[in-house]
């Protein structure tokens, strides 16, 4: 366990090596270095995990302090790594799924000239994300936070020669930056009020000093939440995620599905003690999560780009996680995080596998009948879609979504449960819309090429996980196992799930099945295919654009800002100094007229001057 520090360092080392001498190394060496660094980190993480299960450290917490970074009278920041079950879970997910995605991209990116650059950025991202989850101090967490933001920018704009990619990267960076400002304000509030940013110390101080429901914890929690909302692409800061699909597909799989966008969820889960002191903020989280999952699901119904479908799906599923966080179901949220990481990575990788055989075509209406042509991709995507739709019993997603819906049922008003169940229905509809359109029906584009082992192996492993991992935590009628929440309980509090009426559980089983049936019926009726041909209605266009948020932000924020920038282009503030210079020049021009060169004039001025001086001397 003392090798904990190697886990973030190895990918960082890989990134440094690849960044400095990458182009000279060639493709093979870059692939090896890139994948091996994350792979080794995964091995170490698994070893630590096994060791943890056999003899967990005292208090279920392992601290490793590397050195002291800042030591000021008001604040002391140590570079410390804090390992508890929550951090261990995140680390395992990041490193293992990260390794699989690295392996996948060694084959996926092999025709790209920026090969070593890709792996350098990807390694750097993994290093920053690991730093984020292992951070014992909020400042270190923030360093990792910013690091993943930078890497996201670099990777979304990877193919920078197309200015649209650069614009998408900028959008992601700017929106998350706005959120980060709020988070920084939250950090400042916490450090000035509580005197420390070490997470455990801060939480203890907050519980001791701040009253439940008081203004300070509400404010601090709200500010941290805004930071998390931006990073996790939730309402109202969600507009960047669909555009971030401009990056390569492995990037979308790793960053925008499994890891970075869940950083907000991790933040709330990690500091949940603070959030428990702020019930208003918790309510906002729950409502926001519910709204996001509905809005995103509706938008996903109208997309024609397969990656955008998955992007809105990510937004929606993270909405579920936030919904769980908002009602205090920390374990449920993290369980859904685990299953989502698996099946969303699977979905993205299989989408990438499909498009790489179709000359990077991403429009679902240009695909069709690929069931027979690309069987591996078909089965992988199907398993992922089933898990996403929470197909009862067979898929992992079912168990985690069930857990969330069960915990939300007890929330007063049942409104949130209604939103959740509607969302489940919509999720099944939109993902199986994509499944039926891509894999069934007549073939629109013939695939070419073949898959190598490096593509198939990650798909197979993730598929297997998507089928089995759900059994870690089962509802009452299937055995009532609590392995997962038991594991997490030192970090999150109580284990197990609430007891709920069987009818509700059944409703949760029926919703995805109903959704699949509806999608199939509409597919049979040719409804989805027709969407491609006829122009969209007003509502359709609104939903496709992500429910109009982009347009609103453009009108409210972007246009006024650009107008302001255009107005300030000629630097009006500089007018002060320019004005001074101009005034001096004008005065100079006036005074020049006195330099006539004429002796008499000068003598007259001398005489007048002496009159004035003597007058001053005599009469002053």
């Amino acid at each position: 366990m003392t090798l904990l520090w190697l886990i973030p360092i190895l990918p960082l080392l890989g990134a440094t090596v690849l960044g400095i001498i990458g182009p000279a190394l060639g493709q093979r060496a870059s692939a090896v270095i890139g994948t091996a660094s994350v792979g080794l980190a995964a091995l170490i993480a698994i070893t630590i995990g096994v060791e943890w299960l056999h003899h967990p450290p005292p208090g279920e917490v392992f601290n490793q302090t590397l050195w002291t970074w800042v030591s000021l009278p008001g604040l002391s920041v140590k570079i410390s790594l804090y390992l508890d079950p929550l951090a261990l879970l995140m680390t395992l997910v990041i490193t293992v799924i990260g390794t699989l995605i690295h392996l996948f991209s060694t084959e996926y990116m092999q025709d790209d000239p920026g090969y070593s650059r890709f792996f350098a950025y990807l390694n750097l991202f993994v290093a920053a994300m690991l730093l984020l989850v292992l951070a014992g101090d909020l400042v270190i967490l923030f360093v990792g936070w910013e690091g993943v933001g930078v890497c996201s920018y670099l990777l979304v704009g990877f193919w920078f020669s197309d200015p649209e990619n650069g614009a998408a990267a900028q959008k992601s960076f700017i929106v998350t930056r706005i959120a980060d400002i709020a988070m920084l304000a939250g950090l400042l509030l916490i450090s000035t009020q509580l005197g420390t940013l070490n997470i455990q110390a801060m939480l203890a101080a907050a519980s001791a000093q701040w009253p439940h429901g008081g203004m300070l914890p509400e404010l601090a929690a709200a500010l941290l939440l805004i930071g998390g909302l931006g990073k996790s692409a939730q309402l109202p800061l969600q507009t960047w995620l669909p555009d971030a699909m401009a990056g390569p597909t492995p990037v979308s799989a790793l960053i925008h599905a499994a890891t970075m966008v869940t950083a907000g969820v991790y933040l709330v889960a990690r500091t949940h003690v603070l959030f428990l002191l702020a019930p208003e903020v918790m309510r906002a989280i729950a409502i926001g999560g519910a709204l996001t999952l509905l809005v995103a699901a509706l938008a996903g119904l109208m997309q024609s780009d397969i990656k955008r479908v998955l992007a809105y799906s990510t937004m929606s599923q993270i909405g579920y996680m936030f919904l769980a966080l908002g009602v205090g179901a920390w374990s449920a949220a993290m369980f859904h995080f685990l299953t989502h990481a698996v099946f969303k990575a699977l979905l993205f990788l299989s989408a990438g596998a499909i498009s790489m055989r179709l000359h990077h075509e991403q429009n679902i209406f240009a695909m069709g009948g690929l069931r027979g042509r690309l069987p591996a991709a078909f089965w992988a995507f199907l398993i992922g879609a089933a898990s996403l739709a929470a197909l009862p019993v067979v898929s992992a997603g079912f168990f985690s979504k069930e857990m969330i819906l069960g915990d939300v049922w007890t929330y007063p008003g049942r409104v949130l449960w209604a939103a959740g169940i509607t969302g489940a229905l919509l999720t099944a509809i939109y993902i199986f819309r994509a499944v039926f359109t891509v894999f069934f029906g007549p073939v629109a584009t013939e695939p070419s090429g073949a898959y190598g082992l490096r593509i198939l192996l990650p798909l197979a492993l993730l598929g297997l996980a998507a089928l089995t991992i759900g059994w870690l935590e089962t509802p009452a009628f299937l055995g009532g196992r609590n392995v997962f929440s038991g594991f997490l309980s030192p970090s999150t509090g109580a284990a197990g799930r609430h007891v709920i009426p069987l009818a509700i559980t059944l409703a949760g089983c029926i919703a995805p099945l109903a959704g699949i049936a509806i999608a199939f019926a509409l597919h049979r009726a040719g409804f989805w295919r027709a969407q491609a041909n006829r122009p969209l209605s007003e509502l359709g266009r609104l939903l496709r654009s992500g429910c109009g948020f982009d347009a609103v932000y453009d009108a409210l924020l972007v246009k006024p800002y650009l107008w302001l920038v255009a107005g300030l282009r000629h630097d009006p503030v500089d007018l002060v100094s320019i004005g001074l210079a101009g005034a001096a020049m004008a005065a100079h021009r006036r005074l020049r007229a006195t330099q006539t060169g004429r002796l008499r004039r000068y003598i007259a001025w001398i005489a007048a001057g002496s009159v004035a001086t003597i007058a001053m001397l005599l009469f002053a």
Partner: protein
Amino acid sequence: MNAVFYAAAALALLTTALAITRSNPVHALLYFVLSLLFMAVIFFTLGAPFGAALEVIVYAGAIMVLFLFVTMMLALDKLSLRRERDWIAKPIWMVPIILVVLLAAELARPLLSLHAGLQAAFHIVTPQAVGIKLFTGDLAAVELASMLLLAGLVAAFHLGRRQ
């Protein structure tokens, strides 16, 4: 003695005023020389005979003579005389007179506050006294003054050479 003083003073003022208002420079200079002679008389009445003598011999007799020779060398003709008369038309005197009157008014006050009633006894300062003081107490100044003359000599020689 007082009457002589006042007469000479009035005439000095008059001739100086005439000197600055002539259009012919030679006439003006001659009026000025006359005013210098009256100044010498004033020096004498004040009890400084050596100063009076110097005024006539050095100033009027050497310096002004030099000036007159150069002026005559300039050979001013009728055209320049007419031009000169244009240059001293009445309106030109307006502003200078105002300035000078202002200056006079300002300086009159401290002047009048000089100890008026102090009528010291009249005594003459002899040339011997001047000589003794000059060559014993102020010898350094004498040397400096001669250096000044040397400088002026060299400069005038150099500047006056034909190119």
